[in-house]
Structure formats: C-alpha cells, structure tokens
C-alpha cells in the first residue's frame, strides 16, 4: 500500500534555497546518458552539459580549449594535447590521459561514430596529462573531430554491473549500464531522469571551471508540440525553449518578458532532382529551369518569416567551402524560356516527397515549391510524410524530386558534398544521400583531395571550386540554411554568449538573475 508516503523534494522549493534553476524545454530530449549511443543534436547538447570535450567550438567557429589546455601538431599525423590537471569526474575519479584514450577507443566502436573516426589511429599516452592523437594519414579535420571527444570516466565504466553485463557496452535499444549512468567531467550531473518526460541536472560541485555560469540546476522537459512549447515559455512555465518555430518569432520578439535569439544555422535544405528517374533532368537546362523557378528568397521571407538564410550552395558562411558572392537564381521568365528551349514548354509531371516533421516548415516549403514549379507547367505530385517513414522512401528514391536537409557532423564543407552530391558509391559510402544520382567526377576528385590536405587555405580553395561547379551545373535546388533559434525569459542574463551555430548551447556558462 501507500502507507509510507515519501514526499519527493519539490524542485522549485529546493532551488530557492540552493540557487538558480533553469527550466528548459526542448523538442526532444537526449535518448540516453551514454554520449556515444547516437550522434544527434540532442545527444551533443546533453554531452556539453554533462561532459566536457577536449576542445570546443566558439561562437565564431574557432577552437576553444576545454579539457585540453593546449595542443600542437607534432607531425602531419600526430596532434599532441596537454590535458588540464586537477579535473575530477562526477564519480570522484581523477581525469587522466588514459580516459581520453579509452574514450577514443570506444568511439571507434560506436556505430554512429566509427565512420567519423575511421582516419584515427591508436593514440599514444605520453604521460598522465599528455596524449598524442594519431591519424592514419594526414587529415585536415583532426581538431574538428576532437570536439566530439568527451572523455568518459574509464574507471567508472569498466567492469560489470549488477546484472553481470559489461559496463562499457554501447547499446542502442536496451538496458545498459552506460545508458542509465554517467560520470563525466561536465558542469552538470544527472540526478534524475525519466526519458521523454523530465530530467533534473544538478551543478557538479567540483567542476574545474570555477569562473563560469551560475545555474545550479537544470530541469529539462521535452515538449514536442511547437505551439505548446511556445505557450509554456509565454506562460512563464519554462525559462528557455529550443527550437522556436519561426511562425512565433514575431510574437516572442513582441513579448516583454522573453527574448528571442536567432542565428543563421548550418543545416541546408535542398531538393534533389533524380536524373535516373526523369530523363529531362539529365538536361542541364531543365535543372536550371527548376532551380530558377523556385523563389527561395521568397520562401525565406514568407514561410520562414525572414528567419533563414537563402542558400545557393551547400556550405554556410564560416565553412571552408563557402563562396561569398553567389548570385540569386530566381528568374521565372528565364526558367520558362529554358523549359521551352529544352522542349518542355508544356511541362511534365514529377513526383515529390518531403518529410512533414523533420525540418522547420518542411511540408509548407514543399508545397510552396510545388506551387512555384506549377508556374513553369510542371505538375507536382507531392506527398509529405512523417520522418519515421521518410527515410526509407528517400533511400528507395520513390520520387523524382526529394527534399533533404543536411548538417555536417564534421562542421565542414566536404561532408555536404560527400553525402549529398558525390557520385553514389556503395564501397566508399559516398553519395549515400544523393538521390539525384548526380555524378560529376571532377567534384569528387576535388573533395577527395581536400580530405588529405592539411593546409587550410588550399583546402578551402579546393572546396570552393567544388561548390562552384555544383552551382554552375544546377546540381540541386538549394533553398536556405535554417535559422537556429532559442528563446529565453529575461531572467536569463547571457543567453547570446552561450549559443552557437552547432546548436549546443553551453549551459554551463549560463548566468541567470
């Protein structure tokens, strides 16, 4: 029975005594306490709260030392890190180079990461606080990848749990020790969590970085419904929401007690025109006509409410491959002319698919594009579907025109092209999401070469050239880079400082009034 009622300490009451509580609402919560279980935005957000990476991105895409105090390139395949001293894990264990090596080894086993860490070799522990990270070949993105190395407490995760299962097991779908327990060095410790419902994270008292944020507790609630999430903020039930649906930007901006922070993001939204399915797409003029028929600036202005950046290429600003001076392409008259030239004045019918709950306004964008294509007499049979069903269909290339959004896990231009525009190749895995079946050997060559280039300037030039080729060849229909958005109550003091283009706010640095 319920004879003994154990009253759980009320979070609100407690926080009044101990310090500041940040009530955080996210569209989806982290799926696990194990940072390696999945590579996703949510997990990275979590990792930055509970763990610390060796280095991390600053707001302007520079590297900032965290657990690594400094680093130097020893040789083209070796990067030496000097680790911070006196850091302890949540378990109380001290942090050493061994933990870094252990974590890297685990990353190389993790399904979601093994591809990314494929260029990495065995690290060499120099001493307790020095480690050499090796790559098997010269690799331009070693530091980028080190932002994903969140050292885990190797002692804590070694051995077997009370079920007799190994503690270090990385399991996606079932119970594992790491899924339910954490020991990182990060600013917060998970004190309770109910997946999909509520997380409570408390400040780690022995956190090494003393002069930083003042949030003593984070209560994280996933709220999937956009409108409800916004309502919760407006009603003062939460302090911080992310993401913010674009349609509510105006309202939040207009509301006194809350503020909206936006930032051009790096996820590009595009449509791919499948040349294998539609003969006409092999004709560059038709592709051009499609691209020119789509008023992506208009879409940004109306559907996205101006809160997105129109794109004409994959790479966003700040990325190596970004070309600053690409001209807008929308030109309906020219598009019509091109269709006529190509012999398709009467147009034709294409099928199109898009998800309806994956990207910001994905369904509406697809509809708008369909309406725009109608103007060049292309009849679009549009189908939208939940993301759960979308990817299978996307992979099967069921439609002539398919929407895809992409964010580079490596925060680098090459990643876009490798996945979206490279010639599909089962062995290398390139062009895995190239449902256009667009293939331009020159582009592939350039990107491949850039991968081995450690001179950053040269590398950038190569990537830019590849991007320009795609632009000139009308390889895909670019739309925009999604805006990243957060909204917070005015209690939050330095919200602008902790956010970044990767969409993992550094809540450890947050200050609240």
């Amino acid at each position, binding site marked *: *029975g*319920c004879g003994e*009622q*154990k*009253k*759980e300490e*009320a979070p*609100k009451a407690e926080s009044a005594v101990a310090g500041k509580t940040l009530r955080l609402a996210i569209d989806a919560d982290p*799926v*696990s306490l194990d940072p390696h279980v*999945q*590579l*996703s935005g949510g997990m990275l957000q979590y990792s930055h709260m509970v763990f610390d990476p060796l280095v991390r991105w600053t707001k302007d895409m520079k590297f900032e030392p965290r657990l690594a105090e400094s680093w130097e390139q020893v040789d083209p395949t070796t990067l030496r890190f000097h680790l911070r001293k006196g850091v302890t894990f949540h378990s109380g264990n001290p942090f050493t180079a061994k933990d870094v090596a252990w974590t890297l080894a685990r990353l190389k086993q993790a*399904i*979601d990461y*093994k*591809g*990314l860490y494929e260029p990495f070799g065995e690290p060499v522990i120099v001493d307790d606080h020095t480690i050499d990270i090796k790559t098997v070949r010269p690799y331009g993105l070693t530091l980028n990848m080190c932002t994903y190395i969140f050292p885990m407490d190797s002692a804590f995760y070694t051995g077997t749990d009370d079920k007799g299962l190994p503690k270090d097991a990385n*399991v*996606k*779908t*079932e*119970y*594992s020790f790491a*899924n339910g327990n954490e020991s990182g060095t990060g600013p917060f410790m998970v004190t309770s969590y*109910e*997946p*999909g*419902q*509520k997380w409570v994270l408390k400040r780690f008292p022995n956190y090494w970085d003393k002069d930083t944020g003042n949030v003593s507790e984070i209560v994280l*609630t996933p*709220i*999937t*419904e956009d*409108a*409800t*999430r916004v*309502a*919760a903020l*407006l*009603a*003062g*039930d939460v302090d911080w929401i992310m993401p913010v649906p674009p349609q509510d930007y105006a309202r939040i901006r207009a509301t006194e007690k809350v503020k909206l922070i936006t930032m051009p993001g790096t996820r590009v939204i595009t449509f791919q025109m499948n040349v294998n399915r539609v003969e006409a797409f092999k004709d560059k003029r038709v592709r051009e006509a499609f691209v020119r028929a789509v008023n992506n600036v208009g879409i940004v202005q109306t559907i996205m409410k101006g809160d997105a950046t129109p794109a004409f290429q994959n790479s966003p600003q700040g990325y190596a491959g970004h070309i600053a001076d690409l001209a807008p392409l929308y030109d309906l008259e020219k598009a019509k002319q091109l269709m006529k030239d190509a012999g398709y004045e009467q147009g034709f019918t294409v099928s199109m698919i898009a998800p309806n*709950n994956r990207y910001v306004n994905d369904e509406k964008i697809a509809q708008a594009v369909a309406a725009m294509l109608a103007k060049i007499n292309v009849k679009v049979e549009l189908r939208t579907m*939940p*993301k*759960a*069903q*979308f*990817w*299978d269909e996307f*992979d099967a290339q069921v439609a002539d025109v398919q929407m895809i959004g*992409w964010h580079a*896990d490596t925060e680098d231009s090459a*990643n876009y092209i490798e*996945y979206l525009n490279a010639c599909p190749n*089962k062995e290398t*895995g390139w062009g*895995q*999401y190239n449902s256009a079946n667009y293939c331009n050997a020159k582009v592939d060559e350039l990107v491949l070469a850039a991968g081995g280039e450690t001179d950053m300037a040269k590398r950038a030039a190569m990537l830019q050239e590849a991007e320009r080729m795609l632009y000139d060849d009308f390889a895909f229909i670019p739309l925009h880079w999604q805006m990243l958005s957060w909204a917070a109550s005015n209690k939050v003091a330095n919200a602008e400082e902790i956010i970044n283009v990767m969409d993992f706010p550094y809540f450890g640095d947050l200050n609240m009034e």
Partner: protein
Amino acid sequence: MFAFIIRRISQAVLVMLVISVIGFAIKQNVGDPVREITGISVSAAEREQLRDQLGLNDPFPVQWARFLGKAVQGDLGNSFYFKRPALEVILSKAPATLELVLATSIIIVLLSVPMGIYAAVKPKSWLSRLFMGASIVGVSIPVFLTAILLIYIFSVGLGWLPSYGRGQLVTLFPGWDTGFLTKDGLLHLVMPSLALTSIMLPLFIRLIRAEMKEVLESEYIKFAIAKGLRPWRVLLVHGFKNTLMPVITVGGVQLGTMIAFTILTETVFQWKGMGSMFIEAVERADSSLMVAYLVFVGFVFVTVNTVVDLIYGLVNPMVRVAGRK
C-alpha cells in the same frame, strides 16, 4: 457465470490477437526504427547489420510468432527509445493517463448525475435547456479545438493556468507519482481534464436524462409516488438506481472512447501519459512500444468491460440471479 468468464477471456485473447496482428502490420510499415536510433551519416551496411541484430529483417510471421511467444510470458518487447521493456514504459506512463481519466471521470460523475436528473425531471425549465444546449455544443467541438482554446485563453491570455505537463508530482508509492496531492499538480490537471470532460460529459448528461425520463414514466415510479414517498427518495432510490444500469454499461464502452481522446488531449497538453507516449512512439517508429500500447489498451478495455459487467450484476438483481444472458 462460467460461460461469462470463458467468453470474456476468449474475447480478450481474440482482441489482443487481432490487435497484435494489426499492430504488427503497422509496425512493419510505420517506418524504420533503425533510422531513428542511428545518426544520419551511419552507413547503409551498418544499419543493415543493426537491423539483422534486432530481427527486423525476419519475415512477418516469424517476427509475429516471436512476439507472441514472448508476450505469453509477459514480455511485450523492448522500446528502442526508452531502452526498457515496453510494458514497463507503459506502466510508468499509466499513472498520468489514469489520473487524467480519473479526474475527468470524477468531474463527469459529479456533474452529469445532477444535471442529467434535473434535465429529466424539469425538461422544460430554462436551466435544463441550458444544460442540453451546452451539452450539444460541447459534443460538437472537437476535443483538440477545445484544448487549443483553453490554452489560448487561460494560459497565454490570462496566465491563470499552466499550459502543459503535469506539474509538481509526489510519489505515492514506487511506480506511481501523483499530481493529486500538490496544488501545482492539481492546477496542471484542470485544463486537460476540462478538455476531456467537454467531450464526454454531454454524452453522459444526455444518456442519464434519456434513461431517467424513461424510468420516470414507468409504473413503479408512479407506484412509489402513490405510496407517499418523499420526492428525493422517488428520484434517487427508485429512479436513479434503475438509470444506473444502462449508464454503467455505456460508461464501460465509453472508456475506450475516452482513452482514444486522451491521445488527442495528451498531445496538445504534453501530458506525459500513455496517449502522448503512443503518438511519440509512432513518430519515432518505436514499433515495439506501439504494438505493446495497442495490446495493452485492448487488454484494459476488455478488463474494464468485464468489471463493468460484474458491477452491472451487482446493481441489477436480475442479472445476479440468472447469470448473464
């Protein structure tokens, strides 16, 4: 009695078999869970391997048979997202839904009985007309619209009531956190239960009114009046007790509707119960959880109806003696 129990059990089994087949058919089609649990840049081969590992590549009958085999032992599969047995997840979400349903039921019982009786006794009074008018408006507004309007008015507009979630909870006993014992929890309960009430209450008012009207015309009511009993005794003991039976029966059937409506209500209010869990499971292609939920709901439905029939037997002496027809 014996036949009744056997029939119920076989019905329950049948219901759950059907659900599991249909659930499985959907599961096959609702999307690829592997997609949901891996990052986007994981290679196709890796994914295929994971799929094999999870048995998702087996033919439908094999998967179904495996599911049944485990289900018999009480194992409804593992939720990919929660990384726990699906049944466990459902049970952990059940209190939220049950509290919502309970609060709604309490409101419904407290309101529908007096309102229904009043409307039956005084059908021409303006208050009855008001009840009936309001109730027909109530059933005509879809529950999600009601929910949206409530949020719009009371949370966003007036800021009186919290807009989402269950608020502050207290552990009643392990596995059951209740919002009934805190002011915050109760405040959070107000709007979701109102939304749910708005669609269910009219049904019961109308039902009670109709049944009561019929009962009031019966000979035994006339006889009770002729015996010189007090009006309240005539209404409540002689009238309402007879009305109760159909109301209970319908109430049992309506529970299914109510559970369906919780899906909508919970989604709008982010009430973390079984309903929103189900919708999220669909979105996440967490297929085991989906199937488990459907089977579970089927089970609850059959159980509740069985209980309702048993209660019916307690109230109605004719059933008690004869055994169910």
